[in-house]
Every structure is written in C-alpha cells, then in structure tokens.
C-alpha cells in the first residue's frame, strides 16, 4: 500500500508536467485545428531560458520562471507568425509537415549553438526530501513545487479563458473563425495570444523539469512532447480540463507500469493507450462531439 502511494506521488509529479505541456497542444488545436509538433521544442527552449536566467542573470526561481515564460511566449508568437500564419488557408497536411519542420529546426539550431551535451541545472533552492510514515514514503520539495505551480497555472488559465475578454475571443474563434471575424474580433491577435499562452505554459514545464531532473539537453522535448500529445488526445484534444486529466492519467499509468511491471514497457504502454483511445473514443475522455454545421 505504501509502495502504491509512493508510486502515485511519482506519477502525479511527472503527470503534472505532461499536463502543462499538453495544454499548449490542446489550446492550439482547439483554436486552429493544428497539432503544433514544435511545442515540445518550445518546452526545451523554456528549460534553456530558465537555465540561462539562473546561471547568467543570477535570478532566483520565480523571476527565472517568469523570464522563461515571457521568452517562450514571444517565441510562440514568432513561430506562429513566421511558419503557420502564411499557411493558414493551406491544406492541413502542409501545416502539419511545416510543424514537424519547425520542430527539427528548433532542435538542431539549439544543438548547433549550445552543443548536444546535457547541462546540469543549477540548484535554485535547497533540496529537501520529506519522509513520511517512517521513511516509507518520501516527497521532495520539488515535487510539491511542480504540483503547486501546475495547479496555480491551471487555475490562472481557466480564469483567462472563461472570465476575460481575450478568453471570450479565444472561445469565439475556436467556435467559428469566420463568424468571430465578422463580429469584429481580431482573429490574428487572438491566435497569437493562444500561442503565447501555450508556449508560456510549456516554458514553465521546462523550468520545472530542469529543476526536477537537474538536466537539460536539446532533444529533451521529443519524448516529453510526444507524451504530452498523448495526454492531450487522451483527455480530449481541445479541452483544457481534459489535458490536465490526460496528463495525470498518463503519468500515473507509467509509474504503475514501471513499478509493478517492467520499466521497459512504460513507453509502449503510453502509445498503446493512444491507439486504444483513438480506436474507441477518438474525441477523448472530455472531448465534445463535433457539431455538424448546417
């Protein structure tokens, strides 16, 4: 039982990170029906921005997190403006391939300038492990931090989407882009802001991962990006609570698979889940049925 609780803690920490990244996939898909495969690399750049902020600019954790989120928000807008906006009316496949191209461009440009070696993340605060129930369960202050930051950002995002003018615009654009434009909503700005928000969340995930695993490297976005994508699909792509739930489910499943099965099955299981979801309920757990337009 104690082991089970420990595995849950392990799973929730990783799952929170998946959820943060998954939000970016889900928001962008929700609004322009594009799977932004470069998103995992934005997360990687977020980790490097955080590294730069703490190492060179000597920032403490919160300023570094905010710095990294701002850098990636700008990057997100830039990517959308340069790579996706010129192709907005092109066939879906063109945009999808462009997304993969952008992903590779980001990975290898980073590798070119920073080298492929992993870098150790500086210790931004003292690492403490709390042991509960006579050492049977341990939880580190970083795990608490990951979960706390994720929950705070989630609540913030929910607030932005449901209670602000820009949130209303985002929902309107995702509902019907043409109608929203006719109603006087600036569609381009709205899409830019969606990219900025999603990228900022990915950056936060990047910094948290840097602190949690103490290691950042240019290809770190590939696996985490894919897992976050699976989380988004699992929860229902386009749904914000779905991304959160999907991330947690995936994190916990992985943790239980390696804890009670074999760690070699962890990644296959994640992708088997993806395939099963696509076969059984393609809209995901929280997905809505697409309305037919008459």
């Amino acid at each position: 039982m104690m082991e089970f609780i420990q595995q849950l803690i392990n799973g929730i920490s990783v799952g929170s990170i998946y959820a943060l990244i998954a939000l970016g996939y889900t928001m962008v898909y929700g609004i322009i029906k594009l799977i932004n495969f470069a998103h995992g690399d934005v997360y990687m750049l977020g980790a490097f921005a955080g590294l730069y902020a703490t190492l060179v600019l000597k920032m403490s954790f919160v300023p570094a997190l905010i710095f990294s989120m701002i850098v990636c928000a700008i990057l997100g807008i830039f990517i959308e403006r340069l790579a996706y906006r010129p192709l907005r009316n092109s066939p879906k496949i063109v945009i999808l391939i462009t997304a993969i191209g952008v992903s590779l461009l980001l990975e290898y440009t980073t590798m070119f300038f920073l080298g492929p070696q992993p870098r150790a993340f500086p210790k931004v605060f003292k690492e403490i492990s709390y042991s509960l129930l006579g050492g049977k369960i341990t939880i580190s202050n970083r795990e608490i931090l990951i979960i706390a930051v994720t929950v705070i950002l989630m609540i913030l995002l929910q607030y932005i989407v449901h209670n602000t003018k820009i949130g209303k615009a985002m929902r309107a654009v995702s509902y019907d882009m043409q109608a929203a434009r006719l109603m006087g909503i600036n569609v381009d700005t709205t899409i830019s802001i969606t990219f900025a928000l999603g990228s900022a969340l990915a950056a936060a995930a990047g910094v948290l991962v840097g602190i949690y695993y103490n290691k950042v490297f240019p290809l770190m976005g590939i696996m985490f990006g894919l897992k976050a994508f699976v989380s988004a699909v699992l929860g229902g792509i386009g749904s914000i609570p779905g991304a959160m739930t999907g991330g947690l489910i995936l994190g916990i499943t992985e943790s239980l698979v390696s804890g009670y099965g074999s760690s070699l099955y962890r990644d296959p299981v994640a992708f088997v889940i993806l395939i099963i979801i696509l076969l059984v309920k393609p809209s995901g757990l929280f997905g809505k049925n697409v309305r037919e337009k008459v």
Partner: protein
Amino acid sequence: MRKGFVRVVALGLLSFLLLFTSACGNKSESSNAIKIGANLELSGNVATLGQSGLNGIMLAVDEINNAGGVLGKKIEIVKYDNKSDNTEAASVATRLITQDKVVAIIGSCTSGNTLSYVNIAETNKVPVISPSATNPDVTVDPKTGKVREYIFRTCFIDPFQGTAMAKFVLNELKLKKVAVLKDNTAPYSVGLAKFFVEAFKAGGGEILADENYTTQDQDFRSVLTKIKNLKPEFIYVPGYYEQVGQIVKQARELGINVPMGGGDGWDSPKLVEIAGAAALNNTFITNHYSSLMPDPKVQDFVKKYKEKYGSEPDAMAAVGYDTVLVLVDAIKRAGEATPEKIKEALKTTKDVEGVTAKISLDENHNPAKSLVILEYKDGKQTYKAYVNP
C-alpha cells in the same frame, strides 16, 4: 509583401547553412604523415568520455611527434565526432576508411559505438583499436566464436570488471542481497550486468531484482521505488554517467541509502554535477586506473596532462594515451605504415609500458590488465582497492 518576407527569411537561413558547411570543409593534406583516424564521442550523451580520450590521444601524439615521429614520419590524427550515436559512428568509420584513407582507427569509447562498425573495418581490412570498449563481443564475434581479425582493444573486458565488482561486494563490503539496474539499450551495460550477476550468484549472493531502463529515460523513481521495497543491501548500476547521475540522485531522494556501484562508465566529471556530491557518497566503481596511484609512471602522466590541459586526467584520458602507445609500437615493429602490416604487428603486442599497465595482447586481442576500485567521497574519487587479473 507577406510572401516576400518569408522568402527573405528562407534565403537568409539557406545562405547561413551554406556558409557554415563550406567553412567546415577545409582539410589539410600532408603526404609525409601517417594518418590515423579517431572515431570518438565528442558530443552526445557520453561526450566527456570521448573528449578525455581525445586529450589523452593528443598528448601522446604530440610527444611522439616532438620526439621525431615514427619511421621518420609525423603522426596525423584525423578526428571525427560520432555524436555518441551508433549510426553516426558507422558512417564516421566509413568516411575515415574510404575518404581519408587512414591506416588505422582509434575508437570508439563505448562498446555499442565500436560494435556498429567492426564489420566495416573487417571488410575494408583496416585495424581498429578501441581504448575502452569493454564488451567481449567487440573483438570476438559471438555468432561464430571467432576472433575479429582487425579489431583490438587496450582495456580490460567486462567479465573481469563485473566479476571484480561482484567479489568486492561479497568479500569486502560483505553484502549478500543485491539489485541490478541496467541500461537495456547499451551492450556495455547489459554485458557488465550479466557477468556481475553470474559471479555474484556463484559467490553465494542473492539477486533480488534485475531491472532495466533505456538511454532515453529521465525518470527512474518508479523503478527505484520498486527496488527500495525489496530492501537490497547494494544496487549495481552498470550504466553511463548521464543516466547513472540521475539514478543515484533520485535513489537518494527516495531514501535509498545503501551503497551503489558501477563500472568505468561512471567516470566523468558530469556525474558529480548531475548527481551531486552528497548523493554519490557510498558509491563504488571499477576503473582502468586512478590518478591517485603512487606509481611514478602514473604521476608523471598526471603531471604532463595537468600542464597541457589544466585538469586531472580521468581514466579515459589514460587509456586514450596508452592506445596511441600500443599503436605506435605496432607501427614501429611493422616497419611500414600499412593497415595489413599494422594489424599483424598489433597481434604480437608485448609489454608496452603504458600508464594503466604493461600491455600485452592475447589471442583474443585483449590485454590482461589490472583494475582499481574507487569510492566517491564528497564528489572526489578515492582509491579503494587494486585487483589483478
């Protein structure tokens, strides 16, 4: 207007790439030199191994060239980065053989990367001499049981390394219950684990768990939680420093305070950076040599290395240095620098005075070398024991 902007950006990127590729393409041709290839991990996930190895190699080459070279010629090292990647290592080997026409190849540092091009070297009849590929399959084809004619090494092999650690745990640490956590994607790690387990069971020990991970993994908490509940007295992690660093760190965070250990794949300054000095306390590794050994040969090497690079030479630097000595000895005895002659001479290598040992190669192209067991204390390696073959 919009299209024009995109075009400008695309053109800019293209010219940028062209500029860089052409800038990297300069090669120096000197006919009066013996060309030796170096196929090393200069970047990627075991980059510090290749970089230290290269430092050791260059130290030896510079010394030999300053002393007049071999057979009246200077040695020229043609080095390429294999990015710690199997496929890349194979293409680097092909390039060295077919384009640069080297007479021999030094490398690679890991067994997996070396194994990826042993067949290429065999087919093209160019000798390869690895400083640190410890897996037995590197020189002996496991399918046929035959020795690979052109492949040599200057390091001990995994059965020796794994067995030495098993005996150390049983006899010195007096521990009987062990968990093994290995990198299932690295032949080095799988090999070491296998020989450790065999020797440990034979010595009366008990293996509680034999778990796996892959090189891409970042999170080991789940599998470590599982291991923790089995209550092992020692955990053997025969991987490379990058994952090992995280495994040790995460294990300590989960409250696993038992001793842990591994092989020469741990030996990197990055290990201390990733795991943290405190987490590494109570860990033991088998290694090729220690810069703390009082042997004057070792101390002389350490002094020269420090003068040139300003840092303490790790084991990879020492075996890199020794590999050049063995190769140059063979070229001298061969009388001419052709792959065929060098191969023949390498086979009869006897008593080459290296830093790590006096090296003689046996019929399987392996040297019989002793190893050292080191313990990490506050992030520093300390000398623990010396094991003879």
